[in-house]
């Protein structure tokens, strides 16, 4: 089992039961990493929509359709390139000059990633010290949008999952960019 899904499971087990019920508020996660390479080099690793296959430890395979055009899609297969669970995503915005792109999840099994209405942006900027800052941020809702969400489909599960996914990706990006000098 991949480290990402393992940490997901740990997060879900550790989530305490909450008596409070939650309303329809959107959740936000923003994470970044600083890497000791020029922004152009960082962007070169990230710029293709299907490059996530290279830089995310949980993604075993990415099947893309439409390259980096607005509306392009990608299907991620997690863990096993043939039989692993899938996530379908669509490219919403792409700016080569600004070194960023924005996408949304169009289909995912809530048991795999417990989020709904998820949209996200990755972007690279100059950190002002000769290196790069890579930021991954997303907005989403929990899966169970009733007033008393089930455990595993509540705000904590959603936020925990996305935190784990971002941490895993950014860590591997740093290793890939700084490791092979």
């Amino acid at each position, binding site marked *: 089992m991949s480290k990402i899904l393992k940490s997901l499971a740990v997060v879900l087990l550790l989530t305490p039961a909450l008596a409070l019920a*939650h*309303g*329809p508020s959107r959740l936000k996660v923003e994470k970044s990493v600083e890497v000791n390479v020029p922004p152009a080099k960082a962007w070169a690793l990230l710029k293709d929509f299907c490059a996530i296959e290279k830089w995310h430890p949980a993604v075993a395979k990415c099947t893309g359709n439409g390259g980096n055009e607005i509306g392009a899609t990608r299907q991620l297969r997690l863990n096993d390139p043939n039989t692993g669970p899938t996530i379908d995503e669509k490219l919403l915005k792409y700016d080569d000059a600004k070194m960023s792109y924005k996408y949304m999840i169009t289909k995912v099994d809530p048991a795999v990633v417990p989020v709904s209405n998820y949209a996200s942006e990755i972007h690279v900027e100059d950190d002002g010290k000769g290196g790069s800052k890579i930021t991954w941020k997303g907005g989403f809702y929990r899966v169970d949008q009733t007033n008393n969400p089930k455990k595993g489909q509540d705000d904590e599960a959603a936020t925990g999952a996305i935190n784990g996914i971002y941490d895993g990706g950014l860590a591997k990006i740093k290793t890939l960019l700084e490791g092979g000098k």
Partner: protein
Amino acid sequence: MIHPKAAVLTACLLSSHCLAAPFAYVTNQGDNTVSVVDLARNKSIATITVGEKPAGVAVAADNSRAYVTNPVGRSVSVIDPAIQKVIATIPVGSGPLGIALHPSGNPLLVADWYDDKIFVIDTARLAVIKTFPTGKSPSGIAFDSKGTRVYVTNRDDNNLAVFDTKNYKQLALIATGKAPFGVTVSPDDKTLYTANVQNNSVSIIDAATLKVTATVGVQEFPYASAVDPAHQRLFVTNQHVDTVSVIDLKTNHVIKTLDVSGYPEGIMLEPGGKRIAVANWFGDQLDMIDTETLEIARSIKTGNGSRAFGLFIAPR
């Protein structure tokens, strides 16, 4: 004895806040606060702590009161702008979200997302006096300028409900696009606009015939809209692509798509008509769009998760 409403109005007229340049009351859902933004000085001048996860806001046209919904706190916070403090918190339903104030200042209507009904609050007594049912997941709510009608989007029924405000009798249900959220009434009351979240469109509805006259495509996950009557344009926030679509209402075509800072949501024309204010949930700021140049003139920092869902600027 002075009638409570007259007392509020008198106090208001004697205070500078009712006469000064407009203020925006921006709900920051991530901080549980409201940023009070002075739109003449282009800066936030106060941060007021409200209830849990505030979203909707309705400010009286004379800036005597601001009302905020706290969907997680299950309440409405009542703000007195003269002292910039919450003076009352009214428990309302299970998930109060959309909120609108009758043009006279009373009553206040709150749409409850979970209870599928509208709460009617007497603003003099600060108490719920009545409820009436509507469709599934009511979201946007707006009065016409005379307060004779109130419009409610039923997000999960894909329609717009029209109510008479005398007895809250439902006059019509109009099919819109998928998942209508914000509803906007044109300043002349003749046209209604719904932002349809799940099919990326705006429904344009004639308020007299109560029929959809046009459906205009915008971008991903539109939230709300605002009319600029001087230029006959509609501005629509598209949450997932961080843009605002500008529609020319003479042709019903999108004439420009502007980049804004991040997850734009609440949107409103500034009194005087020179700028359109856009609240950004990820950008944590107001982006001010110049209505002549259709460019962002400046941005004003607000709090975490700014939404400003409703009519959030006064005096107007």
